[in-house]
């Protein structure tokens, strides 16, 4: 714990209320879109949210560059980022939990395996259903489909992400040595790999929809597949954008060997999406 002689306290915050209005518009707009309304309110909310983030982070970056932050503030930022990532881990945990539950319990029960009423449930409601993973349920929702094979696209994507983890670490070592130029270069490589991953994920989705008839409504397999890979892809997008911003800041001569929290936060986040992908690759694609 640091023992400060003075504290840093910001005194007015105009952006939070803008953020609340933005989120309200986004959520209300999204909900009415789902019920057949227009997209304008949602788009307004999203745009305002992005604007708010640019301005709020802009203020924070300016304060940081002016040297207004003490070591204590730095510790607060680090703790917050760590626990934010932990909350993200739990968010993915819900979807992984759904996948494991469906594979360990629901599927076998529907096919009559298990104690209690499983056999009767199968005989009365879903007779003839045999459990094999993947499946789209006893009523074969979404129709006949093919499973997404782990080769070649997912393997390629795994290699892309793992490589991006390496380039990110090289960039980190560079800034720790005070070599900003090298950091920017390797960050550029990391971002490029990140966006390439997202692009390949898009190709994979196109394959799934166009050729495999694997869709979100393809029973529990399609549900878990698209929910897990979709949220992961969204997080990769976010992570790549964050790294891109860090890179631009590096080009503007931000960061030093001792002061580069934003870089490290982005890197932690990047490694987090990396690890989630490994879980996905194993449990969604291979096993």
């Amino acid at each position: 714990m640091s023992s400060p002689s003075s504290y840093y306290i910001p005194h007015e915050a105009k952006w939070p209320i803008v953020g609340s209005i933005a989120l309200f518009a986004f959520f209300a707009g999204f909900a009415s879109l789902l019920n057949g309304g227009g997209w304008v309110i949602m788009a307004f909310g999203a745009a305002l949210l992005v604007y708010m983030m640019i301005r709020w982070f802009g203020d924070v970056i300016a304060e940081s560059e002016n040297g207004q932050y003490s070591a204590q503030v730095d510790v607060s930022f680090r703790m917050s980022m760590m626990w934010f990532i932990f909350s993200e881990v739990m968010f993915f945990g819900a979807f992984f939990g759904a996948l494991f539950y469906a594979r360990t319990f629901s599927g076998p029960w529907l096919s009559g395996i298990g104690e209690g009423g499983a056999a009767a449930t199968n005989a009365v409601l879903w007779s003839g259903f045999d459990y094999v993973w993947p499946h789209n349920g006893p009523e074969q929702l979404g129709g006949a489909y093919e499973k997404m094979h782990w080769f070649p696209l997912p393997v390629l994507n795994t290699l892309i992400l793992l490589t991006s983890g390496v380039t990110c670490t090289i960039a980190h070592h560079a800034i720790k040595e005070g070599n900003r130029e090298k950091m920017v270069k390797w960050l550029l490589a990391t971002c490029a790999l990140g966006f390439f991953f997202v692009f390949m994920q898009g190709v994979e989705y196109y394959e799934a929809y166009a050729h495999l008839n694997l869709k979100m409504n393809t029973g529990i397999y399609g549900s878990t597949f698209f929910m897990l890979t979709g949220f992961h892809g969204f997080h990769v997008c976010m992570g790549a954008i964050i790294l891109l911003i860090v890179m631009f800041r590096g080009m503007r001569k931000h960061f030093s060997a001792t002061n580069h929290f934003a870089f490290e936060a982005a890197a932690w986040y990047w490694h987090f999406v990396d690890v989630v992908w490994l879980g996905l690759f194993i449990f969604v694609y291979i096993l």
Partner: protein
Amino acid sequence: MSTAAAGHHEHDDHGPAKGWTRWLYTTNHKDIGTLYLLFALVMFFIGGGMALIIRAELFQPGLQLVDPLFFNSMTTMHALVMIFGVVMPAFVGLANWMIPMMIGGPDMALPRMNNWSFWIMPFAFLLLLSTLFMEGGGPAGGWTLYAPLSLQGPDSFAFVIFSIHFMGISSVMGSINIVATIFNMRAPGMSLMQMPLFVWTWLITAYLLIAVIPVLAGAVTMLLTDRFFGTSFFNAAGGGDPVMYQHIFWFFGHPEVYILILPAFGIISSIIPTFARKPLFGYASMVYATASIAFLSFIVWAHHMFTVGMPLAGEMFFMFATMMISVPTGVKVFNWVATMWRGSMTFETPMLFAIGFLVMFTIGGLSGLMLAITPADIQYHDTYFVVAHFHYVLVPGAIYSIMAATYYWLPKWTGNMYDEKWGKIHFWVSTVFLNVLFFPMHFVGLAGMPRRIPDYNLQFADWNAIATIGAFGFGFSQLIFVYVIFKCIKGGAKATDEVWDGAEGLEWTVPSPAPYHTFEKPPAQYS
């Protein structure tokens, strides 16, 4: 955005900003704490109004006042409002006010994010409550939003889901802020085991929130995609399982129950020593008991689902794990009683509420133990016995602790003593009506009256009429609470700095009312 470094050479002693925008832009933990507490108070009356609609309908058997769909949306909304709009924000408000003062810090660790955590709440509830005015009405499938019933609800469903995401953002940011504050802003030299118990219980609560709110977000996201995007997480025809929703929901829901009570334990652990004029008995065991309860809360969730058809091994595991929780809880109750033992007790209003908590929370705890027993629960499940149980832990538990905390710290917040006579009247009237309201629910529940149904068999009529009288009595006696609070804000006998003569802790070393910025320089006691 103006900023300044507190305690720098250029002085920074200015008070609150002028005008109403002060409340919109504030980064001050006291302002934000006040906002949270006032928000909770307003929502308390909204949620209470819904409860009175429910009780009015149940005054007599038969359908009289509202149609069943609206009745169902009242039970749903009453729970969502009371849990997410009253108890949680009130505890966060207390955390905002008290934690920085208790640990000798200048403010919360992340003051701007703190502002956002609060200002999300009114918008999130606007989104939630607006569903009541939409075509088809609000959500009516119960606050747990069980699939498939909730999926068959009205079009407003998406608004409900997003309002839960919205509140979740606030909760996670608020909890992260509290964790960072407690770890990073303590007075130099203050060790973790020197922290007041309110700080400890909130630290553990914050971890629970960070761990489970995202799980709730995931669960309701799956509801959303099941309804609007064709997924089949909770649809057996597609290989999913409605029971899976219950598992994921209660993995959030059971820790949530402790989120609603652990800060209360911290409050009671502050108040009882003050008015017994003895240090808290077994401080370390209180900390360990709190941590044990938090750990156990993650492995008991399926006791909400004993009748759903789980494998026998599951029923047994969750039964025994649940019963284990009574051990650390028993340690706490024992410690509170032992703190009072041979103390020089006085019975000011906060102490009355604390003792009321102790007695009536224990009643709720014991009925919880009954519900933990799987074979017995098959009889009690979804009856008014369950309603009686959780209202005994939440109303004279969580809500009483919030009221006790309000009376206890109000003089520190406002600089004025509250009206002791009316405070005591508030306690006694509330306590009498509360028991008239909730105790009979045990009887009708054991006799088989189901919850969440607007009509009932004739043999339950008498106790229901009595409960409704209790409900209106309890509801209207809360106006006394509002009267005492606003009277205290406006004036009254000046409070001393220490306020209570047995009180210990850093918050009693600063003037009353607490200055706008406390501890711009760290206090020296601990270094």
